[in-house]
């Protein structure tokens, strides 16, 4: 895999997250109904940051959960190396809540499909809204995001990679080629 271009810098990521935080609050006036659920791995870190940002803006402590969708994937038996199943932790009742489902990149939509199924197994939320840092197109399912950091049109063979300080020791979004 070769890196083609760095398209977003650390400072841009920061600004995008603040904007997204504002947008979430703007759309959901009753902030006590909001819960954040991040999809493992990077979605979980973005969710953590958003929780802090929302606390900064609105002064409220929003429940935060993490979701590993591995067991809900539709390609479990066709992928080669076995993905390790990471922690799923939703330590609150999602019934009647507005779930902000968070991931780093929205691509085919299959991950979101899996996440929606899994969330439904935890309870019946009032509403689920999707927040992604990057939407790179090429959907294979009728899914769209409610909040998007940035739309980046890409070619099929390209990869969009979000690097976060917490696990990658750097902060950027790059386009790479397979």
């Amino acid at each position: 895999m070769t890196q083609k271009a760095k398209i977003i810098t650390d400072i841009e990521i920061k600004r995008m997250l603040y904007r997204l935080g504002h947008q979430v609050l703007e759309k959901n006036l009753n902030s006590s109904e909001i819960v954040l659920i991040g999809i493992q791995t990077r979605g979980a870190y973005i969710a953590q940051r958003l929780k802090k940002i929302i606390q900064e803006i609105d002064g409220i402590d929003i429940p935060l959960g993490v979701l590993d969708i591995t067991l809900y994937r539709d390609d479990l038996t066709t992928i080669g190396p076995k993905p390790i199943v990471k922690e799923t932790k939703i330590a609150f009742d999602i019934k009647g809540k507005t779930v902000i489902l968070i991931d780093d990149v929205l691509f085919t939509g299959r991950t979101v499909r899996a996440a929606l199924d899994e969330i439904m197994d935890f309870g019946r939320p009032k509403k689920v809204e999707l927040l992604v840092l990057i939407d790179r197109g090429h959907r294979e399912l009728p899914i769209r995001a409610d909040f998007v950091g940035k739309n980046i049109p890409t070619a099929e063979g390209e990869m969009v990679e979000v690097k976060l300080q917490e696990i990658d020791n750097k902060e950027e979004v790059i386009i790479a080629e397979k």
Partner: protein
Amino acid sequence: MEKWSKKHLLGIKDLSRREIDIILELSASFKEISKREVKKVPALRGKTIVNIFFENSTRTRMSFELAAKRLSADVVNFQSSASSLNKGETIVDTIKTLEAYHPDIMVIRISSPAALYLLQKYTKASIVNCGDGKNEHPTQALLDMFTVKEKLGTLENLNVLIVGDVLHSRVARSNIFGFQKYGAKITVCGPTTMIPYDFENMGVDITYDFDTAIKKADVIIMLRIQNERLKSSFFPTIREYVDKFSLTEERYKLRKKNALILHPGPVNWDVEISSALKEKVHPLILEQAENGLAVRMGVLYLVGTEKRSL
């Protein structure tokens, strides 16, 4: 992403240390599922699992059945006592017949040790051993190791003491192979008649002195004593067995402070363990059962999602 290349789980002796690590890590994630409102994930949706029991077992079968169901697999049970085995159908014929239903996993319990090496020739399914005679009971050892890792935080270089009927115990054998991969020093302790011939070659210490051995142990695995052993003169009376090898209150006091007491269950109270200790030791033994479910989910997930050409 981690590579998993084993089609079957036949025994701990066939696993690498890294493979055990993967199973244990996965099992930790699976433990959480059983605490959810909807205790089910679609990981093995559309897969068929056959539990084949040529030997009776309610508890292990239930645990495997539940593990399969929580992964959304379809499960059917085959119990030989209620089937054609008594009418002269051979074990191999049974496997061939069940193979006709194209199962993805066969969970097999059988009284013949090492029989699964033979049976794997007759099926395309993955085989999970849930007890083959006196040979191995790999998921029991995995759940024991999972429990130890969860409680003690490590599996490295432990002193493991296995007490009782080692001769007839597949649990003992699997645990020896498992803990040894993590550098454990293993001591087996039981009546001389119940220590297998030439067992020193397994790299274990052998002792008949429970009182001394218990003082050093980090993990104490108490094995089940089957009542029918009495008939074959392995020991003269229960009283004498209890005297030497039961975990009594006095012996319990000799243990290291954080030592774990494990038992594959069900416990014969006042034989292997004094019932006076029930409140102290039973909770962990029950947790073992809970962990067993998680470990079995982990194992079924690993072998069941294996990419396979038909």
